[in-house]
């Protein structure tokens, strides 16, 4: 338990120290969303209709940016080998790192999302549910993302490769996240069913992600 806590604490400290991880994600999210009204024109109804989708897609892309850092500096500096001799199985190492990524990237994005909703004329009723769905759905971003981060460890500039590997895995999260918001904004639709499915995707990713990432890490250790 001390080991997991130490690892999460260290990763959060590094995210704050190395700078950029959280800031880049937030800045990227802000710019992408701010560009939308400029590109699409001042049609308030159109913006309002596409707002949930745009906010979710922007968030997925912003969270992707910092995924590559999850393991690569640790691999370069030989931290990974020493981590592997610790009392934690690599599955838990991956889970701890994914959790730290969620806290340092996804939670700030979830907090920023409603602010950006203003730019897109998002229906007021949708704000709490937007934050709710992002918080429920975004662990899947980190936990499925850690698989991509582990798989691309050895490839220099694997950033784009991570996106190719991981974005398709985010489709269920995206669909149920948006359908939950739509259920509130444009009834009919079942909010409960969407939220339950979104939670199911997240829970499955919490289990599958670290196991797959650990398998990839083992292959890269040698």
């Amino acid at each position, binding site marked *: 338990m001390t080991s997991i806590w*130490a*690892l999460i604490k260290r990763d959060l400290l590094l995210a704050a120290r190395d700078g950029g991880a959280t800031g880049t994600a937030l800045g990227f999210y802000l710019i992408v969303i701010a560009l939308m009204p400029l590109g699409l024109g001042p049609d308030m109804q159109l913006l309002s209709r596409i707002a949930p989708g745009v906010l979710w897609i922007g968030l997925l892309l912003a969270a992707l940016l910092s995924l590559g850092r999850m393991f690569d500096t640790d691999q370069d*500096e030989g931290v990974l*080998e020493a*981590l592997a*001799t610790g009392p934690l199985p690599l599955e838990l190492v991956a889970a701890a790192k994914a959790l730290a990524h969620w806290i340092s990237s996804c939670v700030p994005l979830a907090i920023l999302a409603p602010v950006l909703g203003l730019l897109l004329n998002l229906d007021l009723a949708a704000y709490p549910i937007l934050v709710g769905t992002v918080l429920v759905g975004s662990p899947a971003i980190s936990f499925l993302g850690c698989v991509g981060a582990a798989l691309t460890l050895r490839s220099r500039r694997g950033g784009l490769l991570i996106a190719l590997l991981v974005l398709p895995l985010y489709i269920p999260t995206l669909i149920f996240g948006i359908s939950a918001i739509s259920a509130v904004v444009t009834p009919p639709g079942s909010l409960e069913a969407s939220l339950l499915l979104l939670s199911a995707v997240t829970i499955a990713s919490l289990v599958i992600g670290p196991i797959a990432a650990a398998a990839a890490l083992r292959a890269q250790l040698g």
Partner: protein
Amino acid sequence: MISGKTDIVTEDNTRNSDRSVETQLIVESLAVERGGRRVISELSFKVAAGEALLLTGPNGAGKTTLLKAIAGFVPPNTGRVVLTGADGDHPLAERTHYIGHTNGVRSTLTVEENAQFWAQYLGGSDAAVASALERFGLGGLATIPAGYLSAGQKRRLALARLLLADRPLWLLDEPSSSLDAAATEVLAGVLDEHVAAGGLVVAATHLPLGLARSRELRLGFAARAA
């Protein structure tokens, strides 16, 4: 040092029954391939408690590969690696310190934060941090971000990990690289103490480490072809 397979097995049978509790590293007819090339083949040796084994040999002889295979990072093609001992039910990696070419030091954390993390993560105590840093001459640098350290100082910080948690088997890859004479002496002292306390050391090295007592295993292309 490199003995035939049958030789080892017979010795094993007589020993295992009465000395099963003593910590001992047993490498049995190990073969490892890297990138489709057989780097180690039919290698068998033992390291008993209180022994230091130095792996020597030319570049590319398989020293690092052997260390990684012992640590379990590289799966062996054949053969096995066992670390017997009182807590033999724990995986070998959890009873091992592995210090490779790279130092495992994150440059944006301070020296002390790096050491503290390893102490907590590896199950050591925070109390060991200060003395470990002091031992390797990093006491005065504790609050400096590790990125500002010289190569030798970073190496010392990596080696300080050895003292942060109690592990019987130490696997060291070129531990004295970029160390100055004084630091090499400190390292030799630390290794000697570990060995005297019944620990095991397997170190790949080109330079003499100045240990009080050690055996040497020479890896070479001839041994590999055999």
